[in-house]
């Protein structure tokens, strides 16, 4: 069962990534081509997921959207996870003044509402994918940092760490070999949800008018645009929502499988 779901998760992610990579070959239509006569045309054999307000093919936009949404998701989660875990582990293991400085900085970052930052960035710069990644990563790393710091804090007093220390292991070794593998479960679970969270926040940014550039198909922006026509064409926001769900599902299954492999205490 477990092996099956994690394989399924892996398969979903691989399929999504392939769809993103080969979007121009897979998409049946040009994602930004107008067909005004097909405005709000529901799903048909020619257009499986129907057409949006301007008659653009929803399926093609979802396939191209995988590039943008997965790209943003992977970039943000990747940056946040690596930077955040590193900072959190150091702070949690070192403790003392280092930990206090970390707490201060992360408190400031967390306490500061990120969308104000988003609005400020958007006021300076036009909507762009790089800006979205920047905005989301600036806040994203803190969650991972706090999570790993909390775990490190509670773990560094435990027997196995003490034993490792007694046997003469240095701090980097203890952190990497003993602490990190033990917290990989929560971190991965968080990361798998983080993917969804990032894609969601990207759509919220679109809702507030601060998302990806006009005409760029991203799933978040598609949900936002589709929501405008919720009362007459709900499928416009449901299909990209399902795409997001599949990605979340995929990363979760994958996360579960990875945790069982990586986290020894799970046995």
């Amino acid at each position, binding site marked *: 069962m477990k092996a099956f779901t994690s394989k399924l998760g892996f398969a979903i992610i691989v399929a999504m990534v392939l769809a993103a990579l080969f979007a121009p070959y897979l998409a049946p239509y040009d994602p930004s081509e*107008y067909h*005004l006569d097909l*405005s709000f045309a529901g799903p048909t054999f020619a257009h499986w997921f129907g057409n949006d*307000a*301007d008659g653009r093919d929803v399926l093609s936009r979802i396939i191209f959207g995988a590039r943008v949404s997965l790209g943003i998701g992977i970039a943000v989660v990747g940056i946040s996870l690596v930077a955040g875990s590193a900072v959190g582990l150091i702070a949690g293991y070192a403790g003392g003044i280092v930990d206090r400085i970390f707490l201060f900085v992360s408190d400031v970052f967390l306490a500061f509402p990120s969308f104000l930052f988003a*609005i400020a960035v*958007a*006021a300076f710069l*036009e*909507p762009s994918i790089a800006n979205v990644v920047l905005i989301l990563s600036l806040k994203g790393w803190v969650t991972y940092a706090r999570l790993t710091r909390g775990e490190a804090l509670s773990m560094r007093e435990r027997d196995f760490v003490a034993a490792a220390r007694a046997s003469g292991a240095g701090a980097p070794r203890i952190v990497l070999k003993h602490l990190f593998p033990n917290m990989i479960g929560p971190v991965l679970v968080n990361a798998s949800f983080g993917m969804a969270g990032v894609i969601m926040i990207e759509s919220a940014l679109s809702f*507030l*008018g*601060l998302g990806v*550039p*006009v*005409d760029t198909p991203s799933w978040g922006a598609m949900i936002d*645009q589709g*929501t*405008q*026509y*919720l*009362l*007459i064409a709900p499928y416009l926001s449901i299909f990209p929502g399902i795409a997001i769900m599949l990605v979340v599902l995929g990363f979760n299954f994958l996360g579960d499988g990875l945790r069982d492999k990586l986290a020894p205490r799970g046995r």
Partner: protein
Amino acid sequence: MRETQATLTGSCAFSVGGVHTIWLISAILALVCILSVSTSCRQAVAAKGDINIAVAAGPITLDPRLATDAESDKISSLICDGLLGRDDDGGLTPMLADRFERISDTSYRFFLRDGLLFHDGTPLTAEDVVYTFSSIMDGSISSPFRSSFTRVAAIEAESPTVVRLDLKEPFAPFLSYLTRGIVSKKAALAAGASFGTHPVCAGPYKLVRFSPDNVVELEANAAYYGEKPRNARLLFDVIKDDNVRALKLIKGDVDLVQNGIPALIIDGITKSGEIRMKNGDGSVMSYMGMNLTDPILSNKKVRQAIAYAIDRDEIISHRFKGMASKANSILSPANWAYDGELPQYPFDPAKAMQLMDEAGFKDPDGPGPLPRFRLTYKTSTVKERVEIARMIAHQLEKVGISVRVAPYEWATFYRDVRKGNFQIYTLSWVGVSDPDIFHEVCGSSQFPPNGLNRDRYKNAEVDALVEQGRTTMDEGERKKIYSRVQQIVFDDLPYVPLWYEKNVVLYRKGLEGVRVRPDASYRVFMDVGKK
């Protein structure tokens, strides 16, 4: 082993407490929720004479001397009557002043109706009229309308019902400034800055409740001098989300929405037959502004090419579902000074390409990917506006102009337009009544921050004409002057006139007396009633 056991016991004891604590906290939270909701509970009044109107934004102030945003202006016009008012066609009509005389080109005398009363029951006298305009003119309340009154030399109360106004020079548009609401001197001085939330005026409604961003409740003024409103109460419900606005109308929580439902979903809402729709020509004119100091756009042929390349019929039929008509002037066809002879720039991509070729902007690779030139198109982040900008951009791409649509947050966008930090943008002119608008928008002395010439247009002939138009008192003469202005501006094309959006009102089928005015004024709500 012993240690494990100890830990376990301790852990047991604590965890029992811990789990219970969680449920206890949850229960307390639930209680807090319930209590705080019930204490803040207010009784919903939905009497038969109440009309619920959904608006997308709340008014900021109801002081007519300060109201610049559309909602503030429109709602305050129901609370505060001016010396003069406007009829459905935009013409000036008597209001608080039942007549006036023009003593000379620069002097007017206004005669107030007898027995006018403010909402608080105190009489409205010439003193209040003088106070209202003086407080705008002397800068004591930082009124944005001060510039309209800089030509006033003197204002005095000749008797409790007669006001005399003297201008420094003849100024034809002046009467149109006197529609601004008159406030109670006593109440305004007593309330100070809070007058905006507690206005005391003499309009058909009085304010009952004003919670910004939430609800504005007006009650019919029983002592109103004119025809009394047909309803007892108007409730303006501020609903920012488009879907929720439509849903409240469908459910019946809201009786009426004016211009607040996107055209694309109107059909879906009226299908059931519960919701009716009325529409009428509007005076709001949308245009594409172009920066005349830009090396590309300073070329008139390029500007005309852009006008020829925009397929407005496609946008009007697709995006507006026909709820707009093509524009060719700032003035709408309903305006007395509109020049009916003005042509249109038809959709003609071949002509557009030819003009750009002539202007020296040849397409380097024909239909290939290289553009003739690139433009950045700024817009606000309002979704419908962005979608329209995207359509226009697509149309311009087809004649070889590469366009990047750049939506900006409103305050930033507005500042950029004012500062001339743009190539092209789209915006609208709202509330145009007197053709003197051409002085503000096309006069070369009116570059921001001095005026509204956002596109930095400069034409000596237009400058002379708009100056002449202000001092000419005869309406026939003025019409001729402004016809000439409209023709020149149409040809010079500092901005591309796009369309006049129709005013669309959606309402529950039980409502009677619903109509729309070109200026989308809320005064029409006075006549709305329930069967």
